Protein backbone atom coordinates (compact mmCIF):
# COMPACT_ATOMS: atom_id res chain seq x y z
CA UNK A 1 0.00 0.00 0.00
CA UNK A 2 1.48 3.27 -1.10
CA UNK A 3 0.55 5.95 1.38
CA UNK A 4 1.69 9.54 1.11
CA UNK A 5 4.69 9.16 3.40
CA UNK A 6 5.93 6.19 1.41
CA UNK A 7 5.51 8.11 -1.83
CA UNK A 8 7.60 10.90 -0.32
CA UNK A 9 10.36 8.43 0.58
CA UNK A 10 10.41 7.04 -2.93
CA UNK A 11 10.57 10.56 -4.32
CA UNK A 12 13.45 11.47 -2.02
CA UNK A 13 15.34 8.33 -3.01
CA UNK A 14 14.78 9.27 -6.65
CA UNK A 15 16.16 12.76 -6.04
CA UNK A 16 19.24 11.49 -4.24
CA UNK A 17 19.99 9.16 -7.17
CA UNK A 18 19.51 12.10 -9.52
CA UNK A 19 21.88 14.31 -7.54
CA UNK A 20 24.60 11.69 -7.09
CA UNK A 21 25.01 11.12 -10.80
CA UNK A 22 24.57 14.79 -11.67
CA UNK A 23 27.43 15.65 -9.32
CA UNK A 24 29.58 12.74 -10.53
CA UNK A 25 29.15 13.88 -14.11
CA UNK A 26 30.14 17.44 -13.27
CA UNK A 27 33.18 16.02 -11.47
CA UNK A 28 34.87 15.51 -14.83
CA UNK A 29 34.26 19.13 -15.71
CA UNK A 30 35.48 20.37 -12.35
CA UNK A 31 38.74 18.40 -12.44
CA UNK A 32 39.63 19.04 -16.12
CA UNK A 33 41.26 22.48 -15.70
CA UNK A 34 43.80 21.04 -13.26
CA UNK A 35 44.10 17.40 -14.18
CA UNK A 36 43.09 17.26 -17.82
CA UNK A 37 40.60 15.04 -19.57
CA UNK A 38 42.54 11.82 -19.92
CA UNK A 39 40.85 8.51 -19.14
CA UNK A 40 42.37 8.32 -15.68
CA UNK A 41 40.32 11.35 -14.62
CA UNK A 42 37.18 9.26 -14.95
CA UNK A 43 39.02 6.44 -13.25
CA UNK A 44 39.60 8.66 -10.24
CA UNK A 45 36.09 10.03 -10.10
CA UNK A 46 34.27 6.72 -10.50
CA UNK A 47 36.56 5.01 -7.97
CA UNK A 48 35.88 7.67 -5.36
CA UNK A 49 32.13 7.64 -5.95
CA UNK A 50 31.88 3.86 -5.79
CA UNK A 51 34.05 3.68 -2.70
CA UNK A 52 32.17 6.36 -0.83
CA UNK A 53 28.78 4.96 -1.83
CA UNK A 54 29.84 1.58 -0.45
CA UNK A 55 30.79 3.14 2.88
CA UNK A 56 27.57 5.15 2.81
CA UNK A 57 25.50 1.96 2.42
CA UNK A 58 27.20 0.46 5.47
CA UNK A 59 26.73 3.56 7.58
CA UNK A 60 23.12 4.13 6.49
CA UNK A 61 22.25 0.53 7.29
CA UNK A 62 23.86 0.81 10.70
CA UNK A 63 22.08 4.09 11.45
CA UNK A 64 18.71 2.60 10.55
CA UNK A 65 18.77 0.08 13.40
CA UNK A 66 18.03 2.46 16.25
CA UNK A 67 14.60 4.10 16.21
CA UNK A 68 14.40 5.02 12.54
CA UNK A 69 12.33 8.07 11.73
CA UNK A 70 11.48 10.35 8.89
CA UNK A 71 13.11 13.19 10.82
CA UNK A 72 16.44 11.39 10.93
CA UNK A 73 15.99 10.54 7.25
CA UNK A 74 15.43 14.20 6.45
CA UNK A 75 18.49 15.13 8.50
CA UNK A 76 20.64 12.92 6.26
CA UNK A 77 19.44 15.00 3.31
CA UNK A 78 20.17 18.22 5.17
CA UNK A 79 23.67 17.04 6.00
CA UNK A 80 24.24 15.95 2.38
CA UNK A 81 23.08 19.35 1.22
CA UNK A 82 25.60 21.09 3.45
CA UNK A 83 28.44 18.76 2.39
CA UNK A 84 27.81 19.34 -1.31
CA UNK A 85 28.27 23.11 -1.00
CA UNK A 86 32.09 23.06 -0.54
CA UNK A 87 32.39 21.45 -4.01
CA UNK A 88 31.24 24.76 -5.46
CA UNK A 89 32.97 27.01 -2.94
CA UNK A 90 36.40 25.50 -2.39
CA UNK A 91 37.17 23.33 -5.43
CA UNK A 92 39.57 25.91 -6.89
CA UNK A 93 41.93 26.38 -3.93
CA UNK A 94 41.83 22.67 -3.06
CA UNK A 95 42.75 21.61 -6.59
CA UNK A 96 45.33 24.38 -6.86
CA UNK A 97 47.03 23.07 -3.72
CA UNK A 98 47.00 19.46 -4.90
CA UNK A 99 48.19 20.46 -8.37
CA UNK A 100 51.25 22.24 -7.02
CA UNK A 101 52.16 19.38 -4.68
CA UNK A 102 51.53 16.32 -6.84
CA UNK A 103 53.09 16.08 -10.28
CA UNK A 104 51.40 12.87 -11.45
CA UNK A 105 47.89 13.79 -12.61
CA UNK A 106 46.60 10.30 -11.81
CA UNK A 107 47.24 10.62 -8.09
CA UNK A 108 46.48 14.32 -8.19
CA UNK A 109 43.03 13.70 -9.62
CA UNK A 110 42.44 10.79 -7.23
CA UNK A 111 43.27 12.95 -4.25
CA UNK A 112 41.25 15.87 -5.58
CA UNK A 113 38.15 13.74 -6.16
CA UNK A 114 38.57 12.30 -2.69
CA UNK A 115 38.82 15.76 -1.16
CA UNK A 116 35.80 17.06 -3.08
CA UNK A 117 33.41 14.12 -3.34
CA UNK A 118 34.21 11.53 -0.66
CA UNK A 119 32.25 12.98 2.25
CA UNK A 120 29.11 14.19 0.41
CA UNK A 121 28.83 10.90 -1.49
CA UNK A 122 29.11 8.83 1.69
CA UNK A 123 26.19 10.76 3.11
CA UNK A 124 24.17 10.42 -0.09
CA UNK A 125 24.91 6.69 -0.03
CA UNK A 126 23.32 6.37 3.43
CA UNK A 127 19.94 7.24 1.95
CA UNK A 128 19.26 3.95 0.13
CA UNK A 129 19.46 1.50 3.04
CA UNK A 130 17.71 3.96 5.34
CA UNK A 131 14.86 4.21 2.81
CA UNK A 132 14.52 0.42 2.83
CA UNK A 133 14.25 0.44 6.61
CA UNK A 134 11.50 3.06 6.56
CA UNK A 135 9.49 1.28 3.89
CA UNK A 136 9.77 -2.37 4.86
CA UNK A 137 6.95 -3.59 7.07
CA UNK A 138 7.29 -7.34 6.75
CA UNK A 139 10.01 -9.67 5.58
CA UNK A 140 7.81 -11.16 2.87
CA UNK A 141 7.76 -7.87 0.96
CA UNK A 142 11.26 -6.72 1.88
CA UNK A 143 12.75 -7.84 -1.44
CA UNK A 144 9.99 -6.16 -3.38
CA UNK A 145 10.44 -2.92 -1.46
CA UNK A 146 14.21 -2.98 -1.99
CA UNK A 147 13.66 -3.68 -5.69
CA UNK A 148 11.28 -0.76 -5.98
CA UNK A 149 13.80 1.50 -4.26
CA UNK A 150 16.67 0.45 -6.47
CA UNK A 151 14.34 1.09 -9.39
CA UNK A 152 13.47 4.67 -8.47
CA UNK A 153 16.93 5.68 -7.28
CA UNK A 154 18.71 4.19 -10.30
CA UNK A 155 16.11 5.72 -12.60
CA UNK A 156 16.89 9.02 -10.86
CA UNK A 157 20.59 8.42 -11.54
CA UNK A 158 19.92 7.81 -15.22
CA UNK A 159 17.87 10.97 -15.53
CA UNK A 160 20.38 12.97 -13.48
CA UNK A 161 23.11 11.90 -15.86
CA UNK A 162 21.31 12.70 -19.08
CA UNK A 163 19.62 15.93 -18.00
CA UNK A 164 22.81 17.34 -16.51
CA UNK A 165 25.01 16.47 -19.47
CA UNK A 166 22.55 17.24 -22.26
CA UNK A 167 20.78 20.33 -21.02
CA UNK A 168 21.94 21.80 -17.74
CA UNK A 169 25.54 22.41 -18.82
CA UNK A 170 24.18 24.43 -21.74
CA UNK A 171 22.05 26.62 -19.54
CA UNK A 172 24.02 27.05 -16.31
CA UNK A 173 27.47 27.38 -14.80
CA UNK A 174 28.85 24.25 -13.15
CA UNK A 175 28.71 25.84 -9.70
CA UNK A 176 25.12 26.94 -10.21
CA UNK A 177 24.12 23.36 -10.96
CA UNK A 178 26.02 22.03 -7.93
CA UNK A 179 24.39 24.60 -5.65
CA UNK A 180 21.05 23.71 -7.27
CA UNK A 181 21.54 20.10 -6.21
CA UNK A 182 22.51 21.21 -2.70
CA UNK A 183 19.42 23.40 -2.40
CA UNK A 184 17.11 20.66 -3.68
CA UNK A 185 18.55 18.11 -1.24
CA UNK A 186 18.23 20.57 1.64
CA UNK A 187 14.62 21.48 0.83
CA UNK A 188 13.66 17.80 0.49
CA UNK A 189 15.27 17.12 3.87
CA UNK A 190 13.25 19.93 5.45
CA UNK A 191 10.11 18.62 3.77
CA UNK A 192 10.65 15.15 5.23
CA UNK A 193 11.19 16.61 8.70
CA UNK A 194 8.09 18.80 8.40
CA UNK A 195 5.94 15.90 7.23
CA UNK A 196 7.15 13.84 10.15
CA UNK A 197 6.28 16.58 12.66
CA UNK A 198 2.81 16.99 11.15
CA UNK A 199 1.99 13.29 11.10
CA UNK A 200 3.23 12.98 14.68
CA UNK A 201 0.82 15.72 15.76
CA UNK A 202 -2.02 14.08 13.86
CA UNK A 203 -1.45 10.73 15.47
CA UNK A 204 -1.37 12.41 18.90
CA UNK A 205 -4.70 14.11 18.22
CA UNK A 206 -6.27 10.86 17.11
Amino acid at each position, binding site marked *: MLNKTNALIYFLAFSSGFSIMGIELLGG*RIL*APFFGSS*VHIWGSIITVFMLSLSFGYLLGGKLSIKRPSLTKYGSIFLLASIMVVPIALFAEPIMEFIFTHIED*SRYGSLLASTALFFVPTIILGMISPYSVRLLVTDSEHSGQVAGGLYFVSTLGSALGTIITSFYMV*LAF*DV*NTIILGFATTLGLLGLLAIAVNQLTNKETKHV
Partner: protein
Amino acid sequence: MFKYLIAALLLTAFSAYADVIHQERSLYRNILVEETGDLRCLKFDEKTRKSSQSCMYKSKPQKLVFNYTKLTFASLLMIDNPQNVLIIGLGGGTLSNVIHQLYPTASIENVEIDPAVIKVARDFFDFKETDKVTSKVQDGRIFVKRAALKKQQYDWIILDAFNGDYIPEHLLTKEFFEEVKSVLAPNGIVAANTFSSSKLYEHESATYHAVFGDFINVITEKNSNRIILAGFDNMPTEQSIAARVKKLAPLLSPYDVDIKAISKGMQSTKNNQDWPSDTKILTDQYSPANLLNF
Protein backbone atom coordinates in the same frame (compact mmCIF):
# COMPACT_ATOMS: atom_id res chain seq x y z
CA MET B 1 20.99 -9.99 -56.55
CA PHE B 2 23.44 -8.89 -59.23
CA LYS B 3 22.76 -5.31 -58.37
CA TYR B 4 24.12 -5.89 -54.88
CA LEU B 5 27.06 -7.81 -56.16
CA ILE B 6 28.01 -4.95 -58.45
CA ALA B 7 27.52 -2.44 -55.66
CA ALA B 8 29.76 -4.53 -53.44
CA LEU B 9 32.39 -4.78 -56.14
CA LEU B 10 32.31 -1.05 -56.73
CA LEU B 11 32.68 -0.40 -53.02
CA THR B 12 35.71 -2.63 -52.81
CA ALA B 13 37.20 -0.91 -55.82
CA PHE B 14 36.77 2.50 -54.24
CA SER B 15 38.08 1.55 -50.86
CA ALA B 16 41.10 -0.04 -52.49
CA TYR B 17 41.74 3.38 -53.96
CA ALA B 18 42.77 4.58 -50.49
CA ASP B 19 44.96 1.98 -48.82
CA VAL B 20 44.96 1.75 -45.07
CA ILE B 21 48.60 1.12 -44.29
CA HIS B 22 48.33 1.34 -40.56
CA GLN B 23 45.52 1.14 -38.07
CA GLU B 24 45.50 1.14 -34.31
CA ARG B 25 43.16 1.79 -31.48
CA SER B 26 44.62 4.14 -28.92
CA LEU B 27 43.28 5.15 -25.53
CA TYR B 28 41.40 7.99 -27.16
CA ARG B 29 40.52 7.05 -30.69
CA ASN B 30 41.06 4.94 -33.75
CA ILE B 31 44.12 6.01 -35.65
CA LEU B 32 44.36 5.33 -39.37
CA VAL B 33 47.13 6.00 -41.80
CA GLU B 34 45.84 5.98 -45.35
CA GLU B 35 47.56 6.27 -48.67
CA THR B 36 45.96 7.54 -51.83
CA GLY B 37 48.57 7.55 -54.52
CA ASP B 38 51.26 9.93 -53.39
CA LEU B 39 49.24 11.32 -50.50
CA ARG B 40 49.60 9.83 -47.04
CA CYS B 41 47.11 10.95 -44.41
CA LEU B 42 46.59 10.54 -40.69
CA LYS B 43 42.94 10.09 -39.76
CA PHE B 44 41.08 9.67 -36.54
CA ASP B 45 38.04 7.43 -36.31
CA GLU B 46 36.65 5.42 -39.15
CA LYS B 47 33.31 7.09 -39.60
CA THR B 48 34.69 10.53 -40.25
CA ARG B 49 37.36 9.50 -42.69
CA LYS B 50 36.83 12.64 -44.64
CA SER B 51 38.51 14.76 -42.04
CA SER B 52 42.20 14.11 -42.09
CA GLN B 53 44.38 15.31 -39.27
CA SER B 54 47.54 15.63 -41.24
CA CYS B 55 48.71 14.71 -44.70
CA MET B 56 51.97 14.61 -46.60
CA TYR B 57 53.10 13.94 -50.14
CA LYS B 58 55.43 10.98 -50.00
CA SER B 59 57.54 12.19 -52.90
CA LYS B 60 57.67 15.77 -51.62
CA PRO B 61 57.41 15.59 -47.84
CA GLN B 62 58.40 19.26 -47.65
CA LYS B 63 55.22 20.51 -49.24
CA LEU B 64 52.39 21.30 -46.85
CA VAL B 65 49.02 19.89 -47.84
CA PHE B 66 46.46 21.65 -45.70
CA ASN B 67 45.46 25.23 -46.03
CA TYR B 68 45.15 25.76 -42.29
CA THR B 69 48.68 24.49 -41.72
CA LYS B 70 49.90 27.05 -44.22
CA LEU B 71 47.83 29.80 -42.59
CA THR B 72 49.60 29.14 -39.30
CA PHE B 73 52.71 30.70 -40.83
CA ALA B 74 50.97 34.07 -40.84
CA SER B 75 52.34 34.13 -37.27
CA LEU B 76 55.73 34.95 -38.76
CA LEU B 77 54.35 38.23 -40.07
CA MET B 78 53.84 39.26 -36.45
CA ILE B 79 57.14 38.21 -34.86
CA ASP B 80 60.76 37.83 -35.88
CA ASN B 81 62.90 34.78 -35.42
CA PRO B 82 61.00 32.69 -32.84
CA GLN B 83 63.31 30.82 -30.49
CA ASN B 84 60.92 29.08 -28.09
CA VAL B 85 58.00 27.38 -29.76
CA LEU B 86 55.19 25.49 -28.05
CA ILE B 87 52.86 23.30 -30.12
CA ILE B 88 49.80 21.79 -28.44
CA GLY B 89 48.40 18.94 -30.52
CA LEU B 90 50.96 17.10 -32.62
CA GLY B 91 49.02 15.54 -35.49
CA GLY B 92 51.60 14.23 -37.93
CA GLY B 93 54.27 16.56 -36.60
CA THR B 94 54.29 18.57 -39.82
CA LEU B 95 54.36 21.99 -38.18
CA SER B 96 57.18 20.96 -35.89
CA ASN B 97 59.25 19.64 -38.79
CA VAL B 98 58.83 22.77 -40.91
CA ILE B 99 59.52 25.16 -38.05
CA HIS B 100 62.64 23.20 -37.18
CA GLN B 101 63.88 23.49 -40.75
CA LEU B 102 63.16 27.21 -40.82
CA TYR B 103 64.72 27.91 -37.42
CA PRO B 104 67.21 25.12 -36.62
CA THR B 105 68.32 26.83 -33.40
CA ALA B 106 64.80 27.27 -32.02
CA SER B 107 63.65 24.96 -29.29
CA ILE B 108 60.30 23.34 -30.13
CA GLU B 109 58.17 21.59 -27.53
CA ASN B 110 55.34 19.43 -28.83
CA VAL B 111 52.61 18.44 -26.39
CA GLU B 112 50.25 15.61 -27.34
CA ILE B 113 47.82 13.76 -25.10
CA ASP B 114 47.89 10.51 -27.09
CA PRO B 115 51.17 8.55 -27.09
CA ALA B 116 49.97 6.54 -30.10
CA VAL B 117 49.76 9.73 -32.18
CA ILE B 118 53.40 10.52 -31.40
CA LYS B 119 54.42 7.02 -32.42
CA VAL B 120 52.50 7.21 -35.69
CA ALA B 121 53.97 10.65 -36.43
CA ARG B 122 57.47 9.20 -35.98
CA ASP B 123 56.85 6.04 -37.95
CA PHE B 124 54.79 7.34 -40.85
CA PHE B 125 55.16 11.11 -41.06
CA ASP B 126 58.84 11.53 -40.53
CA PHE B 127 58.35 13.53 -37.33
CA LYS B 128 61.86 14.51 -36.26
CA GLU B 129 63.00 14.87 -32.69
CA THR B 130 66.38 16.29 -31.75
CA ASP B 131 67.84 17.82 -28.64
CA LYS B 132 66.00 20.99 -29.71
CA VAL B 133 62.75 19.37 -30.79
CA THR B 134 60.96 17.39 -28.10
CA SER B 135 57.58 15.81 -27.59
CA LYS B 136 55.75 15.18 -24.37
CA VAL B 137 52.70 13.06 -23.63
CA GLN B 138 50.50 15.32 -21.58
CA ASP B 139 47.18 17.09 -21.54
CA GLY B 140 47.79 20.56 -23.00
CA ARG B 141 46.05 22.30 -20.13
CA ILE B 142 48.27 20.64 -17.53
CA PHE B 143 51.40 21.35 -19.55
CA VAL B 144 50.62 25.06 -19.77
CA LYS B 145 49.71 25.27 -16.07
CA ARG B 146 53.00 23.61 -15.10
CA ALA B 147 54.94 25.79 -17.53
CA ALA B 148 53.39 28.85 -15.89
CA LEU B 149 54.46 27.62 -12.45
CA LYS B 150 58.00 27.22 -13.77
CA LYS B 151 57.78 30.70 -15.28
CA GLN B 152 58.55 29.41 -18.76
CA GLN B 153 58.01 31.71 -21.72
CA TYR B 154 57.32 30.95 -25.36
CA ASP B 155 57.40 33.41 -28.22
CA TRP B 156 55.27 31.27 -30.54
CA ILE B 157 52.43 29.20 -29.11
CA ILE B 158 50.43 27.10 -31.55
CA LEU B 159 47.11 25.67 -30.35
CA ASP B 160 46.13 22.80 -32.60
CA ALA B 161 44.38 20.33 -30.34
CA PHE B 162 40.98 20.30 -32.03
CA ASN B 163 40.25 17.61 -34.54
CA GLY B 164 37.06 19.01 -36.00
CA ASP B 165 34.72 16.45 -34.54
CA TYR B 166 35.60 16.74 -30.92
CA ILE B 167 36.81 19.70 -28.91
CA PRO B 168 38.58 19.26 -25.58
CA GLU B 169 36.37 21.76 -23.80
CA HIS B 170 38.90 22.69 -21.15
CA LEU B 171 41.16 24.00 -23.93
CA LEU B 172 38.61 26.53 -25.08
CA THR B 173 37.95 28.61 -21.99
CA LYS B 174 38.85 32.05 -20.75
CA GLU B 175 40.88 30.55 -17.91
CA PHE B 176 42.94 28.42 -20.30
CA PHE B 177 43.67 31.38 -22.55
CA GLU B 178 44.75 33.37 -19.50
CA GLU B 179 47.18 30.60 -18.64
CA VAL B 180 48.44 30.59 -22.22
CA LYS B 181 48.87 34.35 -22.03
CA SER B 182 50.94 33.96 -18.87
CA VAL B 183 53.51 31.80 -20.68
CA LEU B 184 53.61 34.04 -23.74
CA ALA B 185 56.84 36.00 -23.97
CA PRO B 186 56.66 39.76 -24.58
CA ASN B 187 56.35 40.28 -28.34
CA GLY B 188 55.26 36.66 -28.73
CA ILE B 189 52.28 35.37 -30.67
CA VAL B 190 49.53 32.79 -30.15
CA ALA B 191 48.24 31.01 -33.25
CA ALA B 192 45.10 28.92 -32.87
CA ASN B 193 43.54 26.61 -35.40
CA THR B 194 39.83 27.05 -34.88
CA PHE B 195 36.39 26.97 -36.45
CA SER B 196 35.12 29.19 -39.16
CA SER B 197 31.51 28.12 -39.06
CA SER B 198 28.95 26.91 -36.53
CA LYS B 199 27.53 28.65 -33.51
CA LEU B 200 30.79 28.08 -31.73
CA TYR B 201 32.51 30.70 -33.91
CA GLU B 202 30.92 33.53 -31.99
CA HIS B 203 31.60 32.09 -28.55
CA GLU B 204 35.17 31.36 -29.50
CA SER B 205 35.76 34.86 -30.87
CA ALA B 206 34.21 36.47 -27.80
CA THR B 207 36.40 34.34 -25.51
CA TYR B 208 39.63 35.16 -27.35
CA HIS B 209 38.68 38.81 -27.36
CA ALA B 210 37.99 38.81 -23.63
CA VAL B 211 41.50 37.58 -22.87
CA PHE B 212 43.70 38.95 -25.64
CA GLY B 213 41.81 42.01 -26.85
CA ASP B 214 41.68 42.56 -30.59
CA PHE B 215 43.06 39.67 -32.59
CA ILE B 216 43.58 38.77 -36.23
CA ASN B 217 41.54 36.29 -38.21
CA VAL B 218 43.50 34.64 -40.99
CA ILE B 219 41.28 33.13 -43.63
CA THR B 220 41.94 32.77 -47.33
CA GLU B 221 39.35 30.26 -48.52
CA LYS B 222 35.66 30.12 -47.81
CA ASN B 223 34.51 27.30 -45.54
CA SER B 224 38.02 26.56 -44.47
CA ASN B 225 39.41 26.75 -40.97
CA ARG B 226 40.45 30.11 -39.73
CA ILE B 227 43.60 30.78 -37.80
CA ILE B 228 43.40 33.22 -34.93
CA LEU B 229 46.52 35.26 -34.18
CA ALA B 230 46.36 36.75 -30.72
CA GLY B 231 48.48 38.07 -27.88
CA PHE B 232 50.35 40.81 -29.75
CA ASP B 233 50.67 44.27 -28.23
CA ASN B 234 50.44 46.36 -31.36
CA MET B 235 49.23 45.58 -34.82
CA PRO B 236 52.34 45.73 -37.04
CA THR B 237 52.28 48.45 -39.67
CA GLU B 238 51.57 47.54 -43.28
CA GLN B 239 55.18 48.36 -44.12
CA SER B 240 56.60 46.00 -41.54
CA ILE B 241 54.26 43.23 -42.70
CA ALA B 242 55.28 43.89 -46.30
CA ALA B 243 58.94 43.75 -45.31
CA ARG B 244 58.42 40.42 -43.56
CA VAL B 245 56.48 39.05 -46.53
CA LYS B 246 59.40 39.93 -48.75
CA LYS B 247 61.89 38.29 -46.45
CA LEU B 248 59.81 35.16 -45.81
CA ALA B 249 58.45 34.49 -49.31
CA PRO B 250 61.54 32.66 -50.62
CA LEU B 251 61.99 30.78 -47.33
CA LEU B 252 58.40 29.55 -47.27
CA SER B 253 57.82 28.78 -50.93
CA PRO B 254 59.51 25.33 -50.75
CA TYR B 255 56.70 24.39 -48.35
CA ASP B 256 54.06 25.61 -50.76
CA VAL B 257 53.20 28.49 -48.44
CA ASP B 258 52.23 31.61 -50.37
CA ILE B 259 52.84 34.09 -47.60
CA LYS B 260 51.86 37.04 -49.74
CA ALA B 261 48.40 35.62 -50.40
CA ILE B 262 48.11 34.70 -46.73
CA SER B 263 49.04 38.21 -45.65
CA LYS B 264 46.03 39.47 -47.63
CA GLY B 265 43.75 37.13 -45.69
CA MET B 266 44.62 38.73 -42.36
CA GLN B 267 41.93 40.84 -40.81
CA SER B 268 41.97 42.49 -37.41
CA THR B 269 38.87 42.45 -35.25
CA LYS B 270 39.52 46.07 -34.37
CA ASN B 271 36.38 48.00 -35.39
CA ASN B 272 35.35 44.83 -37.13
CA GLN B 273 33.79 42.46 -34.61
CA ASP B 274 31.70 39.89 -36.42
CA TRP B 275 30.01 38.46 -33.34
CA PRO B 276 27.16 39.90 -31.22
CA SER B 277 28.49 41.87 -28.27
CA ASP B 278 26.34 39.88 -25.81
CA THR B 279 27.87 36.55 -26.85
CA LYS B 280 28.51 34.37 -23.82
CA ILE B 281 32.19 33.85 -23.04
CA LEU B 282 33.30 30.24 -22.52
CA THR B 283 34.74 29.62 -19.07
CA ASP B 284 35.72 26.62 -16.95
CA GLN B 285 32.27 27.02 -15.43
CA TYR B 286 30.48 27.23 -18.75
CA SER B 287 32.06 25.41 -21.66
CA PRO B 288 29.60 23.25 -23.59
CA ALA B 289 31.73 23.75 -26.71
CA ASN B 290 30.81 20.44 -28.29
CA LEU B 291 27.13 21.11 -27.79
CA LEU B 292 27.48 24.52 -29.43
CA ASN B 293 29.40 23.21 -32.41
CA PHE B 294 26.58 22.63 -34.88
